[in-house]
Structure formats: structure tokens, C-alpha cells
């Protein structure tokens, strides 16, 4: 299964990269993923490798798992002992014997006192050496300038890459999961294909009420306390509640089969599943997302990246489900699904084994565009100062601080270009995928 999908992806990539635009977009996204994954090693004020008083360390690497690593060294000449805590040591001021700096030797929050107050990338930049202020060597220059406090903009952009990609990919994953599931089901059953006996419908509604009661009212204080603890714990508790709620309803609906004796209860009617899902997604689209995000952020008391992911993902599922449904409606007419039905396969098996692969490819194209959209939403939110915590530096937040100081064009242009290139390469990739996959049919 995994081997087959890898082969599938490989063949798609082979076709995508036939055009230079697709090739560049693909490689650029790979590059972004690389930057995002290794942001902590690419832009950090701790050296990658250092030799200091006969000790060899890899501070940037060891800080990945042990931030507050502390070493005690002894000066061979004076025998004076010195304690060095890696994350707060001022490596640039120390007398290092041998050192390899990270490509960008600046941390996100590491103000450079020599280049405060919006230093332009083309201005003279300074650094301290042996107590004197000299012009900065190339490695210590701020290639994208600094902000008011002297933080390096490039380091901020590199760490922002990780956040943007994380939010884009994970929220698209959530939207894809929910959207494909609901779109598939609503397209497959439509308004007339899902038959259920009256007893089942009545019992399902009763089960839903009872399940809701057990999930959200009996557990009210559990959920309430979870919100105090944190976002992920709340998510866990809420998902458990949702499982309890839906599960009770399903069990009750299943019990409907025991009411065989009464004729009216036994009667089967089509259940307008599609109508419900369509109207539901319409209502969902009509809710203003921005206000929901703010309200939830207020309820959760503290901002968190997880919350932003969850909300963007949850608000985007309607887009995916619309595509999946349209694709499913088309696939439903194909004869191989009829054949599968005739052979007596269960609905679940048909949906998973036969319908899903056909629907998945077009939805994949849509997901590419969705990632770009999510990145735009995320950066707009952080631009407004909503959603992502204040201490997390993102492209949007750099841009918004650049807005206060027009002279500091580098704080507008560079993060803006980062967003632009990321978004456009996802668009180009999506466009190429559309060309490649549609040609195949």
C-alpha cells in the first residue's frame, strides 16, 4: 500500500517537473520544508561547533533537546572556573578558539545592541570586537536588516517559515479529512440512497440527545477544567465527547433493527443525508471565521498555534467537501461502482476501496490551493495581532511591525515576498497538478 502510493507520487512528480514552472515550484516548496524543519539550526545565535578552553561542544545541536545545558570549564592558565549556560551565554563576545557559526548567526529574540533602531540591510552595520565597535564582518551582517530592538529580520522570516508551513499543512490536513469524509458520504448516498427504518431515525435522534447529555452536560466540568489546562488537552476531551455523542446515536440507530413487529416502525424511507450536509456546510460558511477565532481565543484565555490550526482547518472543510461531493457524484455514475454494488460489497468497502481513490486525486489538487489559502489567512491573522501568541514571530507579525515604520521598507518587503513566493509556488504546483492529472484521464 505504502509502496504503491510512493510510486504513484513519484510518477506524478515526474510529470509535474516536465515544465520548468512546476519544477521550480516543487523544489521551492521542498526548500521551504527544509528551512522550516531545520530553522533552529539555520538561524540561531549559538554556534554549530565550538572549541573553547580545550572543550569541544555543539551548542546549537545539543540545545535542540536540552535548552539549558550548562558546562563548567577551567582556564588552563589561571585555573579560574567559568560556568557557561548555553542558551544565555554571549558566544559572540567570548574568546573562542575555533568556531563554526550557523548560516544566520542570530536568534529570533536576540537583540543586537550595535544595530538597533531599524538598521537597513545596505547601511553600515557594526559589531563589537575586543571592546571596540568595528564594522561587522560579512557573517555577522543582518542581510535583511533589523527591527527596532535589533532583532534580525531574516532569522524571524526563517522561523516564520516553520510556523506558516505547519499551520498551512496541518489545517489543510484537518480540512481534507473532514471534507473528504462528508463530501464522499453526501455524494454517495445523496438524498435518496440511504434507507433507514422509522424506528432507527427516531432512536437515532433520541440517542443523539442522550449522547449529547452524556458527552457535554455530565462531563461539563471536565471540559470546563480542561480549558484551564491547555489547548491540546481540551481538544482531546472534546473529541472524546464528540465520540461519545455520535457513538450513542449510532448504537441507538443500530438497535432500530429490533423493532420488526410494528409495521410503521419497520417502514423504510430515504434519509436526506445530502440535504443536511449541504445546509450544514452552508451555515458553516456563513459564520464569520475571524470572529469565531477571536471569541475562541478569548474563551481559551491564551492564544495558541494549535487553536489557529484547528479553526482554519475546521472552517475550510466546506471547500473540500464541495469538491469531493461533486467528484463523487461523477464517479457514482461510472459502471465499476455499479459492478461493485452488484457483487454485494458493503457500502463501507465500496466507499473506501473504490470511491475514495477516484475522488482523492482531484481533492489533492484542491488541497494544494487550500494550503496557500491557509497560509494567507494565518499571516493576515498575525498581521492583525490575533490568533498566534505574541511571542511567536511569523511573517505576518514582522509585516505588521514594519507597518509602523515606513522607512523600514525591509520589514515590509522581505516577509511580504516570503508569503508571496510561498503562496504562488503552491498555486503553480496546484495548477501543474491539475494539468497533469486531468490529462491522464
Amino acid at each position, binding site marked *: 500500500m505504502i509502496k504503491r502510493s510512493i510510486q504513484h507520487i513519484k510518477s506524478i512528480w515526474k510529470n509535474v517537473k516536465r515544465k520548468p514552472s512546476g519544477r521550480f515550484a516543487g523544489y521551492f516548496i521542498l526548500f521551504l520544508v527544509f528551512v522550516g524543519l531545520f530553522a533552529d539550526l539555520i538561524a540561531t545565535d549559538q554556534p554549530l561547533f565550538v572549541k573553547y578552553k580545550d572543550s569541544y561542544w555543539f551548542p546549537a545541536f545539543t540545545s535542540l533537546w536540552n535548552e539549558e545545558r550548562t558546562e563548567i570549564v577551567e582556564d588552563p592558565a589561571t585555573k579560574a572556573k567559568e560556568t557557561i549556560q548555553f542558551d544565555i551565554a554571549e558566544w559572540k563576545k567570548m574568546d573562542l578558539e575555533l568556531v563554526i557559526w550557523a548560516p544566520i548567526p542570530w536568534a529570533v529574540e536576540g537583540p543586537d545592541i550595535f544595530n538597533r533602531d531599524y538598521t537597513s540591510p545596505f547601511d553600515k552595520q557594526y559589531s563589537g570586537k575586543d571592546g571596540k565597535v568595528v564594522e561587522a564582518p560579512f557573517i555577522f551582517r543582518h542581510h535583511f536588516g533589523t527591527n527596532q530592538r535589533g532583532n534580525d529580520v531574516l532569522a524571524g522570516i526563517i522561523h516564520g517559515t516553520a510556523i506558516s508551513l505547519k499551520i498551512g499543512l496541518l489545517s489543510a490536513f484537518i480540512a481534507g479529512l473532514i471534507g473528504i469524509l462528508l463530501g464522499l458520504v453526501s455524494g454517495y448516498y*445523496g*438524498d*435518496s440512497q440511504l434507507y433507514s427504518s422509522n424506528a432507527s431515525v427516531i432512536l437515532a435522534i433520541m440517542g443523539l*440527545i*442522550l449522547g*449529547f*447529555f*452524556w458527552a457535554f*452536560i*455530565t462531563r*461539563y*466540568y471536565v471540559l470546563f*477544567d480542561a480549558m484551564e489546562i491547555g489547548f491540546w488537552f481540551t481538544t482531546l476531551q472534546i473529541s472524546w465527547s464528540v465520540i461519545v455523542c455520535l457513538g450513542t446515536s449510532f448504537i441507538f440507530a443500530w438497535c432500530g433493527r429490533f423493532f420488526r413487529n410494528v409495521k410503521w416502525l419497520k417502514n423504510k424511507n430515504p434519509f436526506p443525508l*445530502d*440535504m443536511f450536509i449541504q*445546509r450544514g456546510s*452552508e*451555515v458553516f*460558511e*456563513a*459564520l*464569520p471565521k*475571524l*470572529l469565531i477565532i*477571536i*471569541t475562541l481565543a*478569548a*474563551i481559551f*484565555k491564551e492564544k495558541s498555534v494549535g487553536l489557529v490550526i484547528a479553526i482554519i482547518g475546521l472552517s475550510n472543510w466546506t471547500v473540500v467537501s464541495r469538491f469531493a461531493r461533486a467528484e463523487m457524484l461523477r464517479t457514482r455514475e461510472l459502471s465499476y461502482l455499479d459492478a461493485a454494488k452488484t457483487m454485494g460489497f458493503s457500502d463501507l468497502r465500496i466507499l473506501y476501496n473504490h470511491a475514495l481513490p477516484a475522488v482523492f486525486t482531484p481533492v489533492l489538487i484542491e488541497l494544494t490551493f487550500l494550503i*496557500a489559502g491557509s497560509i*494567507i489567512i494565518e*499571516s*493576515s491573522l498575525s*498581521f*492583525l495581532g*490575533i490568533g498566534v501568541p505574541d511571542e511567536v514571530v511569523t511573517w*505576518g507579525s514582522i*509585516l505588521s511591525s*514594519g*507597518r509602523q515604520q*515606513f*522607512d523600514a*521598507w525591509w520589514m*515590509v*518587503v522581505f516577509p*511580504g515576498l516570503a*508569503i*508571496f513566493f510561498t*503562496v*504562488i509556488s503552491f*498555486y*503553480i504546483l496546484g*495548477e501543474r497538478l491539475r494539468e497533469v492529472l486531468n490529462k491522464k484521464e
Partner: protein
Amino acid sequence: MWIYILKRILLFIPSLFIITLFAFIISIKAPGDPVQRILNSAENDGSQQSTKMDMNKAANELRIKMGLDLPAFYFSLETAADIDTIELINENSHHETLKRLVQESGDQSLVLAWYNEVISTNKILKNQLASPYIKNTPQFEETLNNAIILTGELLQTVSKKQRAAKCDSITSLISLNAGLYEARNSWKKASLILKEIEKQPKWYLKWLPHIHINGLKNQYHKWLFGNGVDTKGILRGDFGLSYRDGQPIMDRMIPKIKWSLALAVLSVFLSFLISVPVGIYAAYRNNGWFDMISKNITFVLYAIPSFFGGILLLVLFANPDMIDWFPASGVKDAGNFDPNWSLGKRILHYLPYLVLPIITYTYGSVAFITAQLKSSLIEQLSNDYIRTARAKGLTEWKVVMKHALRNSLLPMITILGNMLPLAFGGSVIIETIFSIPGMGLEIYESIQNLDYPMIIAVFTLFGVFTMTGYLFADIGYALVDPRIKFNRNNKK
């Protein structure tokens, strides 16, 4: 077809109901107590200098006046462990602890008994402190005070661990100090009852549902229809008073909506004006040089987020260091502007302020509409009826503009429908960047100030406008295109 439209409108009503329900849930679950909020803002005015007792009384009166003592909805689903009686206890801060205890143990009478014992312990201690006959050493007075504070806090302690710790320290205080012998009896009773409660004698009650019908006297009903005295309810456009200045929400909104509406209408008009000819020519000469250029430009424009585009425009065209053509923010020059000017003069005054926002508004939708129009026109041009039209010798102009274009304009109805909420809500980002006093900026500011009545009004109206946009789009589609199958899902 009329049946379709009727059906569509009927489906519109439950959706609307769900949206109001969402807004209502947010309004009652919003953090912070609205009563306290209003009282605090009244106090900040300096009009009221009041003691704590007065504050409590005023808060209770306001609570009843605002209908917050009523049940939330037409019916309520509760656990069989009845927690309603606890609502009757005067001290609001004690409610949560007691409710939790009832929820856990299921036995309401035990919890009430415990509550009474703790209160009486507290009273005995207080009497002792106030009594002039007992000679209090400062040390003893401190212990007494401590015990009083602890018993008071005990009733506000939610978590089980902290409760146990508090109980232990009270027990040790009371048993170690001989002077506190008067409270010993009732405290002993209280701890015994608490032990009983913690055994959860009726644990099963919390798993039993209990549906209670509240009738029309509930908060939601009043929120929708008003209470008949001073509020009119949201259905008649009364969203209450803003927390910020106490003005009615509607009075605040209407002048702001004007700006958002003006911007949205202008930009939609402009974007159609630009993108329709571009889209037509690009589709007509598909893969020609014009198509290639316009495709790449729209692609790039579409990928520029509006906040980046807006700021770039500001940096380039409203910056004394670069090109200083347009004013950077606001909609008028406060020093020069005279509200008595004629409309034409006012518009001329506004115009330079609106150029950059309109460009920012427009460029994204131009890209989107062009792409949509192009793809649907290409689809139409490959149809058989176009070949027929050409075969019968019509000019190319007539073929494209009369036959193909008419059909390819259909998706534009959906786009127009989707733009309706924009006309009401404006764009938060663009209005914040250019400081336009429209709805977008208003939303942003009310969020910053946690002005919940405003947030809820926007929430509801935004939902209603979006749904209405969908409704109009669907009906318009059905009216224009007779081929629409109304029961398209029912094919067998």
C-alpha cells in the same frame, strides 16, 4: 420553478435559526460578566460611589432587569441531580463550588446541609470576632481572622485538592485553638457531611438526563423578540447597547456601513469593468500572447495577500520619501473638511483618500473574476451551438458577445452573491491598514475592546447577509438558467 424557490426559502429559515443560536451561545458564554462590565463602566463615570452591599444589590437588580436570571433556552437538559435550587442562594460566588459538589455526589440535600454548616461556622467565628466581651489578644484575633477567611474561601474553592487542603487547615486551626471552641461543633458536622458527600452516595444521578420545559420566559426568546418593555429584540434590529459608549449598536453601525458599502460597490463595479473584457479577449484568443500575459499577471496578483499589497501601495504612493500622491490614512482632512458641503464637493474631497483602498480591494477580485470568466467562456466556446452559430454565418463579435458570453456570465451570479457580506462587513484588513471608518475597522476595534454586543450583532448580521447572498444566487441562477434540474440529487 416556484416550488424550487419556495423550497429554497423554507430551507433558509432553519439555517437562520441556527446562526442566531450560535450567536446567542457566544453571547452567554462570552468571558466576563456583562453586569459587572456595565456597573464598572458606570462607576468609571464617577456618577456612582457605592459600598459593596450597594453594588451587590445593584448587580442583582440589573441582572433581573436584563433577564439574566431566566433560563437560557426554551427547554433545558440537565442532570437529574437537581442543581436549580442552588441558583437561589444569594451569594453568586458560591454557586460553582456547590454545583460541582451536587453534580459529583448527586445528593443535593447533603450539599445544602454542608453549605449551611460551613456558613454557620463562619457566622459563629464572625460573631466571636465582633463580640466585645471576649478579650482578644492580637495573636488570637489573627487566628480568628484566618479561620474566617479560610471558611469563606472554602465555598469558592473549585478543585478537590485545594478543598481538602483548606479543610485540613481549618480543622487544625479550630481544634488547636481552645478559644475557637464555639465553632467546633458545627465544623465537625460540616466535615462529617463533606466526607459523606465525597463518597458520592447518588453518583448515578449525573448519568440520568432530565428535560425541563421553560416556556417562553427565557433569555433566548427575549433576545429574539425583546422583553416588551425597553428592548425590542434582534428580530426588530435591537442588538442592545455597546459596552464602549452605551450607544445603541444600530446607531453606531449605520454610518460605518455606508463606508464599507461604498467601497465594496465601487470595487466590485471596477473589478467587473476590468476583468470582463480581459477575460473575454483572453478566452477568445486562448493561449495567445494576450492570454499569456494576462494569465501571468492575474496569477501573480492573486498570490499577493491584500495586507501586503495595501502596505506596498502605502509605502510607494503615500510616502513622502517615495511618491507622495495620496494621503496615507483616513477618509477626510479634518482641518479642511466642512460637513455642510454639497455632496459632489464632499465626494471630490473623499476621492484621493479612497484610491489606494479601492485598488487594494479590487486587484484580488479582478484576478479571481477574470480566471472564472475565462474558464467558463472557454467551456462555452467549445459547445456545439457555437459551431452552429458560426456555421450560419454570424460575425465573430455576435457569436462571442451574444451567444457564448451570456451563458458564461452565469457563474458571475454566484460571485456577486458571495460578495454581499463584504458590502456589510467590509474588509477588516484593508480598513485597518487605511484607517477607513467602516465596519471592518469597527469590528477590529470592538474585538480589541471585547465589546460583545457589537461582536454578536456583527456575527448575526454577517451570517444573515451571507445566507441571503447564497439565497439570491441560487434563485437568480434558477431564474436565468431554465436548464437547472431542481431535484438533481433524486435521479435514480
